[in-house]
């Protein structure tokens, strides 16, 4: 039976429920650790660290969600992070390039790595699992060659600021709080509400199903409280982390790319049904190629960020980053077989992992147990997702 008539409005609401389900899980975890740590989890310093420490997973998750929607996987990103970090540190400290040139070079190297892997996946037709497994070894090896086992530290301040710095508080302070940070929070809230109202107006015009006004304001209210509360905390610490701005731009950019552009649609089409995409004239090989180039650039950025945060390049950098990023994407509701996934979901998934990391560290849980707990959370999150899908599918 494939009757559809009775499912009035159901599909849209079901999707929303899935997204909110992950968000709800994040809130539950935050509250849980806030209680367990006697309020230490959400101290301003810890919130700041949560952002700066997890920026690399979030950046990688943004690239990874695109890869996974297209039906692939990328196991090499941890090694790419290490290699790009090494290149950028060498460029700055050994070759004496200015910090911005090193960053650009790092992104370029990331793009080249992506093009290399994209070539094998898209044009030769080797499964991404194999290509990137090889890449994981290749780029880790090259990192060791570049650093000859040692480390490079003592990067200039402008460079480290990318990962560990804050926007200068040029608007001054008010009662010991950074005005710029509070202002940015306010602007974000206004922009969010305006955008939501615009979307709603369009939905109304097109007579598409939409949330009730109560739902809308409840949602916006929660979001505003969350944003302003975050701004309040950060303004009382060191202000707005630079990396937060980079992340915000990435999230907006990639959400737009996946939802509103032809390229984004082609990514979903390939993951949804490769053959149907081919037979609709989608240049599937080139799309796959660019998906990997994109992943490479973002891995390069993550490399810069984690090198900046660490203050130098080490050969062991980026270990297991690929697993964190992949876990974030799947916790965020992406489908293993491709075709389904969102940037926001991946970010929320990354935050779930980040809060777990931080909460367990504050509780000084043994690293071995931390790993086991994270694994269990991944499994439960995906199980929850599958359970939800089955229920909404009705069969």
């Amino acid at each position, binding site marked *: *039976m*494939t*009757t*559809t*008539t*009775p*499912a*009035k*409005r159901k*599909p*849209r609401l079901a999707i929303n429920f899935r997204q909110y389900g992950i968000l709800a899980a994040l809130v539950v975890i935050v509250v849980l650790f806030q209680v367990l740590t006697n309020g230490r989890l959400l101290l301003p310093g810890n919130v700041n660290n949560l952002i700066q420490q997890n920026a690399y997973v979030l950046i990688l998750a943004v690239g990874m969600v695109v890869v996974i929607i297209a039906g692939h996987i990328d196991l090499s990103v941890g090694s790419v992070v290490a290699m790009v970090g090494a290149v950028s540190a060498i460029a700055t400290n050994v070759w004496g390039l200015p910090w911005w040139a090193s960053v650009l070079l790092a992104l370029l190297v990331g793009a080249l790595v992506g093009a290399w892997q994209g070539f094998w996946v898209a044009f030769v037709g080797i499964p991404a699992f194999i290509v990137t497994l090889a890449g994981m070894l290749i780029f880790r090896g090259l990192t060791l060659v570049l650093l000859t086992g040692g480390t490079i530290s003592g990067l200039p301040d402008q460079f480290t600021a990318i990962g560990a710095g804050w926007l200068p508080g040029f608007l001054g302070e008010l009662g010991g709080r950074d005005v710029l940070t509070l202002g940015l929070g306010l602007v974000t809230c206004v922009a969010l509400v305006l955008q939501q109202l615009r979307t709603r107006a*369009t939905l109304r015009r*097109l007579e*598409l*199903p939409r949330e009730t006004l109560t739902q809308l304001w409840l949602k916006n209210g929660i979001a505003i409280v969350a944003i302003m509360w975050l701004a309040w905390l950060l303004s009382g610490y060191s202000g707005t982390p630079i990396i937060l701005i980079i992340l915000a731009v990435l999230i907006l950019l990639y959400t737009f790319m996946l*939802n*509103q*552009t*032809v*390229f984004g*649609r*082609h990514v*979903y*089409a390939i993951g*949804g*049904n490769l*053959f*149907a*995409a*081919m*037979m*609709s*004239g*989608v*240049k599937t090989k080139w799309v796959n190629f660019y998906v990997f180039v994109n992943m490479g650039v973002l891995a390069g950025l993550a490399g810069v960020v984690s090198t900046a945060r660490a203050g130098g390049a080490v050969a062991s950098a980026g270990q297991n980053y690929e697993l964190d990023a992949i876990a974030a994407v799947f916790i965020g509701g992406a*489908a293993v077989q491709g*075709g*389904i996934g969102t940037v926001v979901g991946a970010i929320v998934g990354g935050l779930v992992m980040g809060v777990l990391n931080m909460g367990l560290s504050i509780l000084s849980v043994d690293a071995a147990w931390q790993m086991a707990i994270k694994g269990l959370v991944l499994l439960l999150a995906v199980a929850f997702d599958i359970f939800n899908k089955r229920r909404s599918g*009705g*069969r």
Partner: protein
Amino acid sequence: MNSPILRMLGIEKDFNGVKALDEVSIEVERGKVHGICGENGAGKSTLMKVLSGVYPHGSYDGRIEFEGEEATFRSINDSEAVGIVIIHQELALSPYLSIAENIFLGNENSKRGVIDWNKTNLEASSLLARVGLDENPATKVLELGVGKQQLVEIAKALSKRVKLLILDEPTAALNDEDSDHLLDLIEHLRGQGITCIIISHKLKEIRRIADTVTVIRDGKTIETIDMHGPDATQARIIRSMVGRDLNSMFPPREPKIGAEILRVEDWTVYHPVDTARKVVDNASFTVRAGEVVGFAGLMGAGRTELAMSLFGRSYGTNISGRVYKNGEEISVRTVDEAIRNGIAYATEDRKKYGLNLIGDITVNVSAAALATLAKYGVIDRHREYKVAESYRTRMNIKAPTVSAITGKLSGGNQQKVVLSKWIFAGPDILFLDEPTRGIDVGAKYEIYGIINELAAAGKAVVVISSELPELLGISDRIYAISDGRITGEVAGVDATQESLMHYMTAGKD
């Protein structure tokens, strides 16, 4: 008096409050072939899932009696244990295992977990002989055609000492020859006392082998017809299935045929793997504006391969030949190029090649012409929505909104989404490959109407179909294809099933 082998009384089943089966009752006599007819979504498959225990006892209301005793199956294993075996439309064989391994899969001849291969192969041979399949039991299933795989499924059922065999659309994927063979086999099994329930859209087959037919519509039993009675005609069944009289299977049409749009000359295609084999051999044909051209051929004759190779070389290797559009030679080396040259190909396998089943109607409708909805690579999603909505209305796609996931639509509605996609791409030439396969009578009629509209709008429409009455009903001109060669060309009005069949089997022993 022959007591019924199976009685299902007042079966009710609902999904989230939607009634799929409403007081369905059916009585099947021992040793008879019982047909079940109904449009797609009428509830036939749900009924069979209730019977075979896929939906366990307790998840539905009503009573099932098998051989006079109440049956309370909790799983397929329970129903198989008493001798009810169901063979689904999509065959469930493991391609890399041998015929014998497949027959005894889950039911191995073994002692303490060790398989007795001699016994397995011996028994498999005798079962294959019973179903008339002349193959080595050690042959891997992937080397067999669909028709033979179907026979392996039946052999598997026989190995389970089947008393009641249920066949769900058994001939949907078979050519006429294999279908004939299968129907003979069913008759033969009936002679051996095996009762059979057959679900089919092909009323001719039902007419040929069924002793009784139960028609189901909208989850209700409409009537049970004794096929040996005087008024057991195809028209009667159709009337009962659709709840209305179909004066004609095909909507009326007045062809207005214009100038030649497409000309293909000496088109030759080789098999992509077996590169020495010609799949399309020197095919030349033309299609004119406003014309509906049919392609008739048996399965494997090269019809689909011809169309797919023309559509951006989606099939085959070493392709040669020339394509002219409006008298000028065009290149169709990639799908993109074919689309830009105004060619569309709606596939015969909509699930594999036609649709993004996890995507909604909107993204599927716009998929082939996304560029026309975008500026600088950014999609105008409002316009996209409006386009999808207009096609939903125009094509009468039954879905609450265009945000409905295509994988959850019925076959007929999925087909309409595929057609919408290609009509929106704005082609001049449409290849429609089996446009009505596996969809119900009502939806077929609608699709014929759409084909007529396209032709009336001056498009050239090529219809590939295995159903000869369909080709005869809608085509202005028909090409017959056999063994990769175009063996005949007949005007629609002059063509008969016999004349086409003559060409379609030309050059074959």
